């Protein structure tokens, strides 16, 4: 029991010491950035972009990792807003579109501003839901990614051939968008037919197991493999290597991760779609900050300015080397630089029916 008491004191001390460290800094200059995790290329690039913007105005970024768990996201937002958070600014990745409404409404209740990334339910938009707090929703065009990769595959196969598709987690919007885009490509390229689709859950190892099984099931009928993200595409390439087919079967991914771009350089992969990841982080941070400082008047914004895609580029053998060599210049990511034209790199309003 003595030990119990001691550890109770220890527990209190641990929590108190860690929590006392909280500096009550100026809420207008601190961005709460909710991300999936901090250990993947996309996220680090996005965080970098947001951090550049906030540091350019003398502010800070507090990164919150939610491990793609909406419940954890909800608890974290709750923890930040509960003690009071008038005028706080947020850029948040809602782990599931089902929760986007709850998140923005919570932040609206607390009197904060939020920009969301990637996920919203089809029926809700920044201008009709918590419109005074939800500044914008910023995503990449998954349909376009699916379509462009699909067309690249079609062209590489010479217009005919059977392909297999590694899907992401089924109820994630990007998975569905990329499938829609692929279907659009198939409609334009009727010679390309899908043998089978399976769920690789965005992960490399399951994708590798599935591809290996496909290779024994269909043998050399498979001419192309669509990986709906780069990790699954890497799994497919690994399985192809085992079968000595790497470079002979065309593989596409999406994300533009450097590993995949290197494979595109060497010819083991065909293409991947890369968003302007740093820019997405930067614009999201800048819009939230702008709304907070009054640089942006939300009521003046058009729908296309509050719910839009950021540009992306298809990487193939032609531009792979150039893509790898590029290095984002912090000067392009200051608040002032972005503010000059917030929507310079918008790829247009998000259409209906893709979420």
């Amino acid at each position: 029991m003595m030990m119990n008491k001691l550890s109770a004191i220890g527990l209190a001390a641990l929590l108190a010491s860690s929590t006392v460290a909280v500096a009550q800094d100026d809420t207008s200059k601190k961005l709460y950035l909710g991300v999936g995790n901090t250990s993947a290329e996309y996220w680090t690039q996005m965080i970098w972009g947001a951090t550049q913007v906030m540091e350019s105005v003398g502010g800070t970024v507090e990164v919150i990792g939610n491990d793609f768990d909406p419940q954890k996201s909800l608890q974290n937002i709750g923890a930040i807003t509960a003690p009071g958070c008038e005028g706080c600014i947020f850029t948040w990745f809602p782990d599931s579109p089902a929760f986007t409404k709850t998140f923005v409404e919570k932040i609206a209740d607390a009197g904060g501003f939020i920009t969301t990334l990637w996920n919203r339910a089809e029926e809700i938009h920044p201008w009709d839901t918590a419109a005074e707090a939800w500044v914008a929703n910023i995503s990449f065009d998954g349909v376009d990614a699916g379509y462009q990769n699909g067309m690249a595959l079609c062209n590489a196969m010479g217009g005919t051939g059977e392909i297999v598709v590694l899907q992401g987690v089924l109820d994630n919007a990007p998975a569905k968008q990329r499938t829609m885009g692929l279907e659009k490509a198939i409609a334009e390229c009727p010679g390309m037919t899908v043998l089978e689709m399976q769920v690789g859950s965005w992960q490399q190892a399951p994708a590798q197991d599935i591809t290996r099984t496909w290779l024994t099931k269909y043998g050399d009928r498979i001419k192309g493999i669509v990986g709906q993200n780069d990790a699954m595409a890497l799994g497919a390439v690994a399985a192809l290597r085992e079968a000595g087919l790497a470079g002979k079967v065309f593989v596409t991914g999406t994300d533009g991760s450097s590993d995949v771009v290197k494979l595109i350089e060497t010819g083991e992969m065909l293409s991947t779609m890369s968003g302007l990841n740093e820019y997405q982080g930067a614009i999201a941070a800048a819009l939230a900050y702008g709304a907070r400082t009054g640089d942006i008047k939300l009521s003046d914004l058009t729908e296309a300015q509050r719910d839009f895609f950021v540009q992306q580029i298809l990487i193939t053998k032609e531009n792979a080397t150039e893509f790898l060599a590029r290095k984002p210049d912090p000067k392009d990511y200051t608040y002032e630089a972005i503010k000059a034209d917030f929507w310079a790199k918008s790829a247009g309003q998000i259409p209906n029916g893709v979420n």
Partner: protein
Amino acid sequence: MDATLRFLRRNGAVLVLLVILAAVSTAAPGILRWRAINSLLQDNAPMLILIVGATLPILLGCLDLSIAAMASLAAVSAALLSPVLGSASVPVVVGGAAALGGLQGWLIGRLQVPSFVISLGALGIFKGVAMYLTGANMVGITPGIWIYDLLGSRSFGMSNSFLLVLIVAGLFAAMLKFTNLGRNIYAFGANEIAVYISGVRRDMVRSFAFATSAGCAALGGIMMISQTMFASATVAGSLLLPALVGVVVGGTAISGGVGGVLSSLIGGLIAILIRVGVTISGLPPESQDVAFGITILIAVALTTDRAKIGVVK
């Protein structure tokens, strides 16, 4: 002195809750505002009701791994049924969930397959059915159905969802204390065979426990969509581990027979506060999980009454 010690041991969970509350509110005094507390309770009401429900199978020494999948399935079903049935969709879904849970409990006895396996299988089945029902799409709730509006709003200044959690937990606590069924549940957890030979209907007790855990899970799913207004096949999928953590932090023994619904509720509150503390601590995101994990371990060490547990497994 002895009395103090006994008091400390019996109320370990409450004390830990107070200690953590004190620590967190020192760092962020705003957390003590009614509005803040209310908002935390409302957000976490779905998790808390899952914790309440999950306690009963654990009191038997069983484990129900299907609760989070059931919550998602219930959310999806309620959303799909609400245009047709309106508010009646809630009792229909909760009743259906309880029936499925009861079936699980009954199958454990009939097939003599451990609950871990049955509920793991059920997890897969519920997830698959939810996926199939929605075609992996989101389903929105038709606005204006009073029961969802009710769950999403407040009375007496308190979240209705959390009030419902309190009512359900209170009912179960009373059931455990004052009814024959409650007595049988504790005894079942302590020695299943002796209870069987005492003439207790084993299958019935087990079915009841699993029906309540599934019914509570369904309520949790419904509370969740009353906040989100959207359901998907994985909407509550991540609630399983937090729910189990809550039960254990409250001092309910995994081996069965020891603990209770109110302890679990307190355990859930402890887990929520630890999460709040870790998030507002300003620790880098990478260390937050480590801090959470270690603090939870310490909390469990403090709340478990080891005197009642035999061999620790």
